[in-house]
């Protein structure tokens, strides 16, 4: 188990390094000049050259990359002489736009994105698993058919459409909720929930529809397994046959998918955050893209990769915990 963990952690580090290198290379190829970006409007050619020297942009790409990676772990000093700025661990550089450290920008917004992602995940799991299991156990009934047609319909709706409809019905017409704005959980838990209900619902509906369909297929497949028949042949009550012998294996692939989805969403739900003006990592990413704020874009890309790769590892560990056959790997 320790060997397994060590191998997986090493693989994880390599994956992140490769992603980091690729992102770095992509930005080097972009036509925008980081020095001009950093310098701002109405910058003379001399000043741009000075900035370029200060940022070390004249160094070979590999040296710049090495400095970037080293900075993440050990911090780095940007610039020289009177312009020198110490950027402490973990250093992802400074935003061209706001001159704030990228790390601070991301960490300020992470709670918002995490609130959105985790809350939505709870909602879509309850909905998706409930509908999926119910449909599978009542396979072929009118209930199953209605639910499955419904999930296709919901899955087909674009997020911005759902968001707009929800806002119109609940806020504009119904007046049931305020227009969402982010309030920290620590500040006022009640408002935190009230303001996040619509974003949660918007995000969760799409995922719930996918999870319901996947759960349904998985449960139908598992309930046809010979070991489920054995459980019945042992004389176990149906409740136990389904609950213990059927659902556990059926939900394993769902857990895998949840890990991946949640990993991606922790680093921001780009569209949903923008739609509801939630100051999350996704919104920050969208804004940075618009302004070619290279350090921020790189930082968020790495953060997202980190979450996805680590949630993958968590999924594998959970998998090994559930399914003894996976422990050999």
């Amino acid at each position, binding site marked *: 188990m320790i060997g397994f963990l060590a191998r997986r952690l090493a693989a994880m580090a390599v994956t992140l390094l490769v992603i980091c290198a690729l992102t770095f290379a992509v930005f080097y190829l972009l036509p925008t000049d980081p020095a001009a970006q950093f310098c701002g409007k109405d910058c003379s050619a001399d000043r741009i050259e000075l900035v370029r020297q200060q940022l070390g942009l004249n160094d070979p790409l590999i040296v710049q990359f090495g400095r970037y990676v080293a900075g993440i772990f050990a911090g780095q000093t940007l610039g020289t002489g009177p312009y020198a700025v110490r950027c402490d661990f973990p250093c992802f550089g400074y935003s061209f736009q706001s001159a704030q450290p990228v790390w601070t920008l991301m960490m300020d917004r992470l709670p918002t994105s995490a609130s959105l992602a985790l809350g939505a995940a709870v909602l879509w799991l309850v909905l998706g698993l409930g509908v999926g299991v119910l449909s599978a156990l009542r396979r072929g009934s009118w209930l199953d058919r209605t639910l499955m047609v419904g999930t296709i319909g919901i899955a087909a709706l674009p997020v911005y459409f759902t968001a707009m409809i929800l806002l119109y019905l609940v806020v504009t017409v119904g007046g049931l909720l305020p227009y969402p704005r982010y309030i920290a959980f620590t500040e006022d838990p009640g408002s935190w929930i009230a303001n996040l209900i619509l974003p949660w619902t918007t995000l969760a509906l799409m995922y719930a529809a996918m999870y319901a369909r996947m759960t349904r297929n998985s449960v139908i497949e598992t309930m046809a397994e010979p070991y489920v028949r*054995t459980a019945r*042949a*042992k004389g176990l*009550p149906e409740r136990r046959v389904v609950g213990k012998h059927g659902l556990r294996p059926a939900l394993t692939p769902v857990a895998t998918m949840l890990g991946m989805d949640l990993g991606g969403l922790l680093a921001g739900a780009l569209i949903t955050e923008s739609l509801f003006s939630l100051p999350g990592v996704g919104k920050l990413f969208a804004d940075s893209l618009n302004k070619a704020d290279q350090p921020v874009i790189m930082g968020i890309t790495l953060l997202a990769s980190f979450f996805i790769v680590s949630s993958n590892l968590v999924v594998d560990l959970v998998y090994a915990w559930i*399914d*003894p*056959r996976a422990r050999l790997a």
Partner: protein
Amino acid sequence: MTGQPLLAVHDLSVHFATAEGTVHAVKGVDFTVEAGRTLGIVGESGSGKSVTSLAVMGLHRGATVTGSAKLHGRELIGAPEEEIRRLRGRTMAMVFQDALTALHPYFTIGDQIAEAYREHHGGSRKRARARAVDVLGDVGIPEPARRADEYPHQFSGGMRQRAMIALALSCEPDLIIADEPTTALDVTVQAQVLELLMKLQQDRGLGIVMITHDLGVIARVADEVLVMYGGSAAEQAPADTLFAAPRHPYTRGLLDSLPRLDAADGAALRSIPGTPPSLLTPPAGCAFHPRCPVYAAAGDPRCTGDRPALRQVADGHRSACVLDEVTTA
């Protein structure tokens, strides 16, 4: 209970509604099983032998079962599910073909056996586990206390099948239905497993229904044999009689197609030409007539008229061939 057979099946029929029409998987089968005796049911895939056993166990999901099956004189067909469930595993138990898929991959062998025991006998986990270790020892698994904590995938094929038998035995049933219990095993292991079943039968007075397509297995273990073809009984006789003097052309074809060591060098293996009949659109009359050499040689309108029923042809020997006088001449 004296004078009453352990299991008495009378005019048992099973049909499924499918999109293409009704499938008559079993059509009016009769047989009895006495305590301490073995009934072999032999037939090709699709002959209805497995469906018959599942119907007796009440595990025929989505099928309609008519007729009668009495266990200790108690009617099973049409009985409330809860009543059948209490008998399953406890009074009648089933051994399935492929223990790797029939045992649950997520739970240890010991847990799976203990679960069945606790369901029917209650008691502490400790006692159920002790019982599991005992039966594992009974079926000849070395170091049963250690192996009870292992998972099915850690067992060899033969040991897994023994564990499957241990599971069936754990609640001391009176009847064991074994559906192709040795088909997935090597020949040597196959012999060991059959010997084990016969020894357990002697020790405990078990009634056994042995379902197989393998006449070699039948010859080794069966007291009585029921040959099934296309969902109906073709021939029924004591095992010795059946092998010595088969009456139905299908049974003869099966026996002729066995490879023999005493056959002349270079003699080709014989097979029954054609394929088993479709259960959806079965041939009129005798289901075997399209493949029957006797019909081909001396066709008779009775072969394509009404579906022939079993008729007494000798003491304790019944055949469904209407051309019996031709075949025995």
